[in-house]
């Protein structure tokens, strides 16, 4: 499992304009549904009979006019009302995009692995024109001239129906003023998790977003966010193995090419390592957690420090393997022992190094080591049986 994380900035931009906001409007959706069911142009009679319980046909026509203005229906070449493409989408999402005018705050993230930058939008509450001017007045007392609309906001006006990340609300930007104001930035976490059995990683945005009031009696609030976003397009063409090798090479103990060579040699994700770079626990288990410092991927951007856990380790060279084997042999002496037991354990330990050429120490060599390291508490496990008659 690969786990990566970074903090991303949530930028805000306040701008005046008309935004169609997805609302629950079952009465209009019913008209769209009727148009979809009929599969032909709707008449005022159809609506009056089917939906209005036999009210006059004229009322049916008025309903159709409203649906035309909401975009649920459109006029065909014969000037007859039929279900529009947007209407089909609204029907599908059971929402009607209702145009609303006002000052809007858009929350968006600019990040290489976030394809849909708009995480949220909200309509700001402005009590009156006087307050509005005060709000816009900067510290110097002059009314700011405003900032140009960010590019991604400009592009929004060309898009059909969109969905914001935080609440999943639909919206469509109908028109925006050319200028607006940048608001205060926030921060949230971007967490990328990739299970080796999955084709693509899962990306989660997690954190809190500060929300300004949208009604006069509202107070500023915090909106919790934890949403999985669609797999980023930037990961197309990157495999789990590619990312694993790249990350492992950032662990400062080996280079990517060497890792790839060992993977090809052994058929498994494996980490070649020098004996001197291992700690006691890793040497025993031959599995380690590789700590990776903060890194930057060419396509995916920067990530915080992370770790690759439970990596199988192999000694980088035969010398490393020999040192490692001898270390394990010494470590295995945890009770009084005899030459035949030493030989037996040596055979088992040697099998831990199938890719290296090693020669375990024999009993006499280990005894010599014990004599030279008599202060080592393990030495007694060899010296006592030797000195006290058991080493026959």
């Amino acid at each position, binding site marked *: 499992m690969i786990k990566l994380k970074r903090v991303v900035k949530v930028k805000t931009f306040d701008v005046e304009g008309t935004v169609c906001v997805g609302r629950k409007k079952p009465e209009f959706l019913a008209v769209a549904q009727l148009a979809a069911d009929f599969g032909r142009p709707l008449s005022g009679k159809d609506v009056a009979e089917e939906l209005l319980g036999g009210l006059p046909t004229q009322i049916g026509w008025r309903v159709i006019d409203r649906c035309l203005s909401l975009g649920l229906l459109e006029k065909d070449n014969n000037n007859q009302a039929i279900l529009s493409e947007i209407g089909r989408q609204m029907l599908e999402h059971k929402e009607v995009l209702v145009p609303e005018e006002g000052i809007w705050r858009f929350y968006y993230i600019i990040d290489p692995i976030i394809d849909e930058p708009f995480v949220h939008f909200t309509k700001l509450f402005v009590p009156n024109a006087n307050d509005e001017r005060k709000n816009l007045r900067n510290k110097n007392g002059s009314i700011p001239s405003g900032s140009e609309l960010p590019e991604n906001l400009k592009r929004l006006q060309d898009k059909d129906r969109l969905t914001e990340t935080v609440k999943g609300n639909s919206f469509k930007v109908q028109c925006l003023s050319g200028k607006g104001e940048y608001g205060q930035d926030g921060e949230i976490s971007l967490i990328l998790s990739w299970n080796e059995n999955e084709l693509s990683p899962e990306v989660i945005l997690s954190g809190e977003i500060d929300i300004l009031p949208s009604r006069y009696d509202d107070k500023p609030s915090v909106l919790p966010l934890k949403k999985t976003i669609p797999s980023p397009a930037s990961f197309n063409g990157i495999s789990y193995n590619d990312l694993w090798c790249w990350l492992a090479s950032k662990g400062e103990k080996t280079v990517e090419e060497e890792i790839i060579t060992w993977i090809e040699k052994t058929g498994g994700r494996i980490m070649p390592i020098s004996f001197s770079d291992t700690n006691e626990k890793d040497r025993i288990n031959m599995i380690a957690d590789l700590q990776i410092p903060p890194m930057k991927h060419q396509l995916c951007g920067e990530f915080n420090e992370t770790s690759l856990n439970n990596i199988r380790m192999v000694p980088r060279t035969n010398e490393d393997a020999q040192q490692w084997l001898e270390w394990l042999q010494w470590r295995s002496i945890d009770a009084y022992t005899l030459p035949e037991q030493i030989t037996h354990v040596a055979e088992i330990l040697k099998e831990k190094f199938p890719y290296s050429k090693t020669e375990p120490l024999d009993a006499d060599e280990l005894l010599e080591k014990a004599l030279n390291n008599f202060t080592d508490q393990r030495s007694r496990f060899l010296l006592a049986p030797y*000195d006290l008659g058991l080493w026959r």
Partner: protein
Amino acid sequence: MFKPLKLSRIIPVTQPLPPCWMEKKEFFIQKDLYKSNIFCIGRDGLFRNALISAVDEAKEVVLAASFLFTDEKLSEAFVNAYERGVRVYVLSASETSLKNLGGDVEDFSARMAEEHAKFMDRIAGKALLRSAAHFHAKFLLVDPDYDFPKGYISTANFNKALTDSVELGIELSQQQTNELASWFSYVFWKESEHELLERGRLSRVKEPPAEPVEPLNEKIQVTTRNNKSLRTTIQSILEAAEKEIIISSFGIEKENLITELLVRKAKEGVAVTILTRPRPAVSEAVKLLESAGACVIAHEKLHAKALVTEKSAMIFTANIQAHGLDTGFETGVILSEDQRISLREILVSWKDIFPWHFANSASPKDHLGKISLADSSLKEGVLEVIKDFPVILGDIIADSVLSFDKTADPEFKAPHIKNFPQQITYTWTVKPPTLPLGAVEKFENYSKEITDDKGSIKIVTEKRPFIPPVFEHKGKAYVVVEKESDIEKATLLSEKFKAKVVVK
């Protein structure tokens, strides 16, 4: 005239003394001695120095066993040896067995147990120490099975006894050293209970990685769980003795095969000498041995265990007790003829100069001086056999002045005396009886002729005192004498009046 008569009587005490240790007058000073590889331990520390030097010279291995260790110099030598790369192995008593020792063991106290624990702390991680409740043997082996092995068996624990107690040590031959090393190894693997892993941490020992081979008893005799060669060897040596047995042991049990054998040998006429320490724990055994004819001599610091007959000799670490000869880990070595002669010299000298001699029922006249009762410890108080104990009896009032010098002796009742006198001198005073208060003088009537005014002669009766005077009191008559010359008349009056002759 009639003065009180002062009398005395000396009565020799014939009642034998209770079973006790009688102190001899000779003053014993333990001196260092080294002869025929035998060390007689003394204050100069000859044996202790030999042990320390051996450890200092160790090149490969040191094997040490002692019931308890507190000798600082020796433990320092162990640590120094370890720091030179010498492997040091130690067998000692378990802490539990040290704590369970009774107060009867005078060379050991709670302080010693504490010092033993300090020793363990000092060598933890440096020497490999194993302990068991039954480990009692004391020996030191240096570089066994290498070129220049050295070995010593000690009857002394490796503590202040190395200079302070009456102990023996023996330097072993190469073969003895190597054989004893095999026994050390065997017991290390087979009979140890705990192992000192680090300071303050004793853990239970696990099964050895292989079964050790039990050594043969060629030069070394032992007591282990499966081997009682020490007892059987002592038995054989005693059985073969025809003239003389001298045996030294700190502890001697009455109910023990060796004790029974010593009793039998003594009864058969073999000159049996027992050297021991005067303690209540040995009292039952020494009573039995002495009554069988053994000579029992003791010293309050004796701890040596050795045996000499006219044919053989041994130095060993076990007491004459089941815990030592039947159970425990003990060791001993049979001596060469030279060594036998040297050991005999030592033990005979001890016999001569040890301060305490045991007797079941000695006559007080045979000893003058300190004794210690067999069932009491020396600490509880030493008693004394004294020459004379004077007893002043009360005055005796004679029945009559007439029998003043024939007054019967008083009853000579022996008083309660803490010590034991050879004789008791009783003194008393015989006093003449006196006239009781309120006695009334008695007069005699007599007739006499008188001539009256008219010149006629008349016979009249008159009263006159008796000579010597006679008195009466409560119906009894008393004749009072003042001087010797009154006696004759007083005798007559006494007869006449059935009166008691008294003084005033």
